[in-house]
């Protein structure tokens, strides 16, 4: 009970968790376009915007708007605070699973 409440509520929702996990897979110093991110998450644009706004308000993502020629482009990246929050979140999950579960559970399926 107490352990679950330690989980960051901004990240602890399936859609935002997937969003943050997707951005965490980028190399440091990289941004991903809104449309590509949408495809990688199978989310509707409206849904993605909603969750992005929540993460942006928490200071976890940075949304950059630019122009490629005349076409406006939006790019998204995890901030340092966002990466830190994500690392803490996964560390808390591993701790919740306990030392016994730590060996097998988070690993990839055989």
């Amino acid at each position, binding site marked *: 009970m107490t352990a679950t409440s330690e*989980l960051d509520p901004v990240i602890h929702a399936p859609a935002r968790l997937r969003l943050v*996990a997707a951005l965490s897979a980028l190399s440091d110093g990289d941004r991903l376009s809104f449309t590509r991110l949408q495809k990688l998450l199978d989310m509707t644009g409206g849904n993605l915007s909603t969750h992005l706004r929540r993460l942006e308000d928490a200071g976890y993502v940075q949304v950059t708007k630019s122009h490629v020629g005349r076409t406006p482009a939006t790019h998204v990246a995890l901030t340092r605070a966002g990466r830190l929050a994500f690392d803490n979140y996964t560390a808390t999950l591993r701790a919740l699973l306990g030392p016994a579960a730590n060996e097998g559970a988070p690993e990839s399926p055989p």
Partner: protein
Amino acid sequence: MFGTTSSEQNDTAQDAADIPLAAADSLALIDAQQRRVGEQIEPDARLLYGLWGVALLIGEGAFFFATWKDSPFDIPLAVAGVTLLVSLVSAMVLTSVHIARRVAGVQGDSSRQGMFYGWTWMIGFLALAAVISGVTRTGVDEETIGLLWAAGSGLVIGLLYMAGGAMWLDRTQFALGAWFALVSGAGAIAGTPWIYLVLSLAGGGGMLVVAGAIAVRTRQHGR
């Protein structure tokens, strides 16, 4: 921010779906999503090594059979030249298309790295062509020109793979580059027609072996 019209409805719908997950499920979800992004934005090494392996195997192989005096096939030099050119240009076009599709939408440091690295290949081969055209004007024979092209491009490929391995900390790429540079040197010492056989089998064949090894390793790791 993004001009959403129905954000309120989305919020409600989303909240219902967003019941907290169990720890193990959350970790599995993170893992799956990270894999998916990695698989879709990183170029597929199996495909690229496979592509270049086939191109070199066919192109350099044609040159070998055209220049080997005991060759069982009667391939004119011009045909071999066109075969090599078509193989290499096709591999280059397919590589560019594949990488462009994979990295679409990714902006930042890695796209700058990729751009510099792409230009390194272009400028490397342009400079090689200039060097060889300079040597050609001194009146050396066709065999020497062929040898220079083969060994020179093998060396450029080898060096750039080694540099790529250093930049992306990719041991396989580095080893393949070292192999390429060394067999090109050895092939040049062996001379015509052996250098073409070396580039075809050791070079192109080596790439196919690496592509196969990566495919096996990927399958074993379930990715």
